[in-house]
């Protein structure tokens, strides 16, 4: 099995250097490629110094929120009175996102090494890697890599557990993930308390995304300054980022570029542009939970945390979903809403009932049974669903609805007026 595409010259290959190289999956192969040097280096340092280095690199969370990683680590109690935990979020379930899967498939030891370093920095005795249930192949690869690493004794006293999810999207939410590890229903918890105060099993916990953790060894071996220097636009967004591009591009796949890379170039240059005769219509740049960009916005967007916010969206997980001019945006948005209605954990009223209601309204619009007031109803419902719940699943359902109606209102109106032929919302 080879990796789908050779690196494009404009990619900055750091995390994806060994994607497609099966030998890098083995412990021996990883060591041969310089693996576990960063861990040795870290263990020779003070844990606080490791954190400082990560802080200085400007690394920010790659799971979606973009919180500065080093700063997050400093939230762990300074005085260690109780056991500390590290959780690695490998529950990559965000529609349109498939970067962590590749990291685990090709470079499992990069993740394990980063895990060991992070655990050392936050003085954790136990680390959990929570892998999405559907990721059977990555799980097998990680399992093998873990047993090799354990046999080689790389973790010292640290215990690393792989924990398989059971198929719920919401378990990728950090506190739901902790509940899931604890054997409880994967419901997000109210914050505060934040995980650093009371996380897994009520103990101080740090949780990081796979891609974040996998970047840590590189920061140690090549230095924070090098990492910080990987920046094409805003200095607050540093390093490289994997973008999972899917939808109507010639070459979908994972692309690793430096922060601040233009989205336009990613789509037209790296991914080979739209299918012939088609033009770009819309892009969801950060996984299904972020607002949709229309063509003009997308072509202006620089891919970093600030660049996306500037265009009214978010970098999110880096799952880039591309729509060409043949896309039916009403249908696409209904599909997104239906996903959230299916995955709502059912705790908060707005999310439990609101995601389902949103889906039904969109379905009836598609079926030609929409009412003139439906768009205002959807927007008002979205307002009731935004910023009012425990986690952001409800907001994530509302975001594409609001941005979709704002940017593609005529498509909705054509369904309402009968100009567009009704379709079965399958």
């Amino acid at each position, binding site marked *: 099995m080879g990796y789908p595409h050779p690196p494009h010259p404009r990619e900055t290959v750091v995390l994806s250097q060994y994607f497609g190289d099966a030998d890098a999956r083995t412990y021996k192969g990883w060591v041969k490629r310089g693996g576990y040097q960063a861990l040795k280096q870290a263990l020779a340092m003070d844990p606080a110094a490791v954190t400082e280095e990560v802080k200085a690199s400007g690394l920010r969370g790659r799971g979606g929120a973009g919180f500065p990683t080093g700063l997050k680590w400093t939230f762990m109690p300074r005085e260690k009175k109780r056991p500390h935990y590290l959780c690695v979020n490998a529950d990559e379930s965000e529609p349109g996102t498939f970067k962590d899967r590749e990291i685990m498939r090709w470079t499992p030891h990069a993740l394990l090494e980063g895990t060991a370093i992070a655990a050392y920095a936050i003085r954790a005795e136990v680390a959990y890697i929570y892998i999405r249930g559907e990721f059977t192949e990555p799980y097998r690869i990680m399992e093998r890599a873990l047993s090799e690493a354990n046999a080689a004794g790389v973790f010292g006293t640290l215990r690393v557990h792989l924990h398989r999810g059971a198929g719920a999207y919401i378990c990728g939410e950090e506190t739901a993930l902790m509940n899931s590890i604890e054997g409880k*229903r994967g419901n997000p918890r*109210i914050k505060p308390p934040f995980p650093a105060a009371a996380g897994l099993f009520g103990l101080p916990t740090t949780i990081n995304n796979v891609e974040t953790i996998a970047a840590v060894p590189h920061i140690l071996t090549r230095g924070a300054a090098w990492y910080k220097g990987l920046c094409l636009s805003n200095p607050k967004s540093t390093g490289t980022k994997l973008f999972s591009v899917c939808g109507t591009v010639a070459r979908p796949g994972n692309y690793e570029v430096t922060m601040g890379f233009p989205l336009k170039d990613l789509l037209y240059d790296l991914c080979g542009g739209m299918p012939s005769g088609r033009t770009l219509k819309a892009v969801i740049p950060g996984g299904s939970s972020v607002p949709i960009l229309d063509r003009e916005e997308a072509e202006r967007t620089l891919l970093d945390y600030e660049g996306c916010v500037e265009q009214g969206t978010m970098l999110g997980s880096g799952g880039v979903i591309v729509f060409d001019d043949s896309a039916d945006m009403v249908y696409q948005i209904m599909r997104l809403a239906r996903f959230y209605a299916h995955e709502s954990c059912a*705790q908060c*009223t707005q999310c439990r*009932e609101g995601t*389902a209601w949103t889906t039904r309204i969109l379905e009836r619009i598609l079926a030609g049974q929409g009412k003139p*007031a439906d768009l205002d109803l959807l927007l008002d419902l979205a307002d*009731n669903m935004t910023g*009012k719940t425990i986690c952001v699943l409800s907001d994530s359902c509302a975001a594409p609805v609001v941005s979709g109606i704002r940017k593609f209102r005529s498509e909705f109106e054509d369904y309402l007026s009968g100009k567009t032929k009704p379709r079965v919302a399958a």
Partner: protein
Amino acid sequence: MAEPAPVNLTIDGVPVRVPPGTLVIEAAKQAGVLVPHYCYHPGLPVAGVCRMCLVAVEKAPKLQIACATTVAEGMVVHTQAPDARKARTGVLELLLINHPLDCPICDQAGECELQDFVFQEGQPATRYAEYAKRFNPVEDFGPDVLYVPNRCILCTRCVRFMEDVASEPVLNVSERGDRAFVGIHPEARLDHPWSGNVVDLCPVGSLLSKDFLHKARAWELDKTPSVCTGCSQGCSVTLDVRDQTVVRVRPRPNLAVNRYFICDHGRSHYRWMNGGDRIEAPLVRRDRELRAVDWDEALDRARGIIAGAGGAAVALVSPGASTEALFLARRLLSRFAWTGAYQVVKGEEAPLPGVPGLALRADRAPNVRGAELLGYSRDYDAALRAAVGAGVVLVLDDPTAPVRTDGALIYLGTVLPDDAGVRGASVVLPLANVAEEDGTFVNCDGRVQRYSQAKPAPGMARPAWWVLGELAADGTEPAPASAAEAFARFANATEGAAGLTYAALGLSGRVLGSGAVVPA
């Protein structure tokens, strides 16, 4: 340890001062504001899921839920801010999407928090309109609990009660999204001895008591504060009475005893209060038969018997009698060499793990401690032996007493005794039961608590404190004119209780000193 400094905040313009750590929703109560809520319950861990109690807090970036926000110095809360109102109206609209409007046949109607808050803050019509509502059939959860999933708003109070308070997590939230419902473990029943509380906790008519099913509409009920008679724990309860019949017993919050809960034994232990087998007139023995007479004649006869009796006196009392009655019975026989005893039905203990010190107690009577305080003994057999040769035997509402005596027998009770021995009484005086009189019980922890009259006594039956007070009245001290006065006399004769009054007992009672009663 010094008290931590209180926190000052403002809620809807009203300044309040509360201990640090108080939740905004509780602080709001002090400001006279009830923030609408469903999942929050002071007796349960905070879930923060219904999102009904959203309020605006100045300087906070978005609306906060009052049930999970802790007060802070200088905090300014606006419960009626337009965005908070809109958010709550939105939640109500969403809750009503799948809630059937079957209030006319719902037991909860009239005491339903969904009705109340929709009336208060909801909108007149839904925009959800034409879709069918979620449907799931009614489930039989346990001996006394039905689950009507269609009405469920998934506040999870029941789930949290079973998990965190009863420590028997047989309920969960099953499924996700709008398909969710409260599920029960496939091999379990909701039969924990305290599981009936889920019915009270349910803010809507989703969890119903089979016992109360379709018995009454909430607005037909008269509610009276009382004390549970099921065991010596003495949980505070409310008696719900319809047409002079007790139809339901519910917990009455008392943080010092039962918090917000009662056990299923106590909940179901009320039918006897409505029994039709009551003595309705005083009876005196004439020509070997008990004949109905008026109170004056019956009291005269009883006084005469006691005045004329020599030798010893024995009192066989019910540990379910009021403290006032037990005290006055003791006082009545104070000139005799005296033996007093009670018998108590025993049962299995059933603690509620989430509330330390709260249990269904083995002694299944409410005033065992009161009887002990007043010198009545548990050695019932010794009292029965003493009764044989006693000059006078007083039986206080103990219809099963197998008493044999050569002396005179006076029986005071609610129902006619089963035992031939007691049926041989010279005088039978009809008493009101616990639902028909005012009085107090002393619980197993020495807490004396009031209960109040919830319905009239049948026929000529009178409260025991009145009957015994009349019998004991002599020239020096008139009979007490009220239960309160009878209690004051008891208190003044009790070490550590002097000066204690009904008013001072309030709704949650007071712990008596450990001192024994000084019989005067």
